[in-house]
């Protein structure tokens, strides 16, 4: 497996994503510069967190017009897996790879904290190693993470099982008090209709080592490896 990690000016979780692939999975990872048109033969693309283009205009609004994004969109349209984390999620929404949008946190503050997520779907290449309803701890670090979508879009993605992660409390309830940013229905992560693009505000690449407080993100990366190995083998 080879992962292409896209680097925009202002990306700052690119090295964590690189290490997730290179160290946790022991697989090949390469950086893909935003001005290039080359995904270097990657069979997984990661849009990492950060503040691409300084979040000018809106988070992700400028990054989506980067040369590399044309290749990422084409790759996703061919069914290639794209993991879009935090600013990557914002970029994926702006690029039309995922429905909805991410707005300023309802408390208007940047929030950096561990949160509990409930796994809502394991029928994706990103979550097959989790259990339905499993509660994992993963950190968030964002100022613009409030997921929103038109009511009909929201109904469609809920109905189609595209909501993958929800913010919950320690007992696994998607309570209002467990919602850090005001996201509709406590939504923390969704997949595209085809299931091959995952956007999530929390950072699974920062939850891979007990030293950092949680290993809740490990199964996400091992799930991806399983899916890509199965693809390669079939």
């Amino acid at each position, binding site marked *: 497996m080879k992962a292409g990690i896209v680097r925009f000016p202002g990306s700052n979780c690119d090295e964590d994503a690189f290490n997730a692939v290179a160290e946790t999975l022991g697989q090949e990872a390469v950086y893909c510069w935003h001005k290039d048109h080359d995904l270097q033969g990657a069979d997984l693309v990661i849009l990492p967190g950060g503040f691409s283009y300084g979040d000018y*205009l*809106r988070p992700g609004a400028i990054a989506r017009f980067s040369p590399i994004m044309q290749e990422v969109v084409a790759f996703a349209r061919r069914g290639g897996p794209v993991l879009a984390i935090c600013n990557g999620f914002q970029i994926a929404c702006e690029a039309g790879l995922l429905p909805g949008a991410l*707005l300023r946190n309802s408390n208007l503050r940047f929030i950096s904290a561990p949160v509990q997520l409930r796994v809502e779907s394991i029928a994706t290449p990103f979550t097959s190693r989790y259990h339905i309803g499993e509660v994992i701890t993963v950190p968030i670090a964002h100022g613009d993470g409030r997921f*929103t979508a038109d009511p009909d879009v929201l109904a469609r993605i809920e109905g189609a099982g595209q909501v993958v992660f929800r913010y919950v409390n320690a007992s696994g309830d998607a309570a209002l008090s467990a919602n850090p940013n005001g996201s509709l229905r406590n939504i923390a992560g969704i997949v595209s209709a085809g299931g091959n693009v995952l956007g999530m505000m929390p950072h699974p690449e920062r939850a891979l080592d007990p030293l950092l407080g949680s290993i809740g993100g490990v199964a996400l990366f091992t799930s991806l490896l399983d899916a890509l190995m199965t693809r390669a083998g079939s």
Partner: protein
Amino acid sequence: MTRYRLSVHIVPRRGILDPQGKAVSDALHSLGFAQVGDVRVGRFLVLDTEAASAEAARESARVMCEKLLANPVTEDYEIAAVEQA
């Protein structure tokens, strides 16, 4: 071609929570402006451009809003002015 100056307002769509607008509204109320209702905080852009006519300039501003300046999921835009620069 003539130079035009375009003024574009972009605001959060009505019905979508605008926490900045709510904070401003609450502050105005505490200052005694009890008559103030809904407040939405957005962006104001001024663009210099060239176009064959004011209508063409307005149309290009509309396309810019649709493609980049406004997010169609969450924001409304208004081309507030098209003036010869």
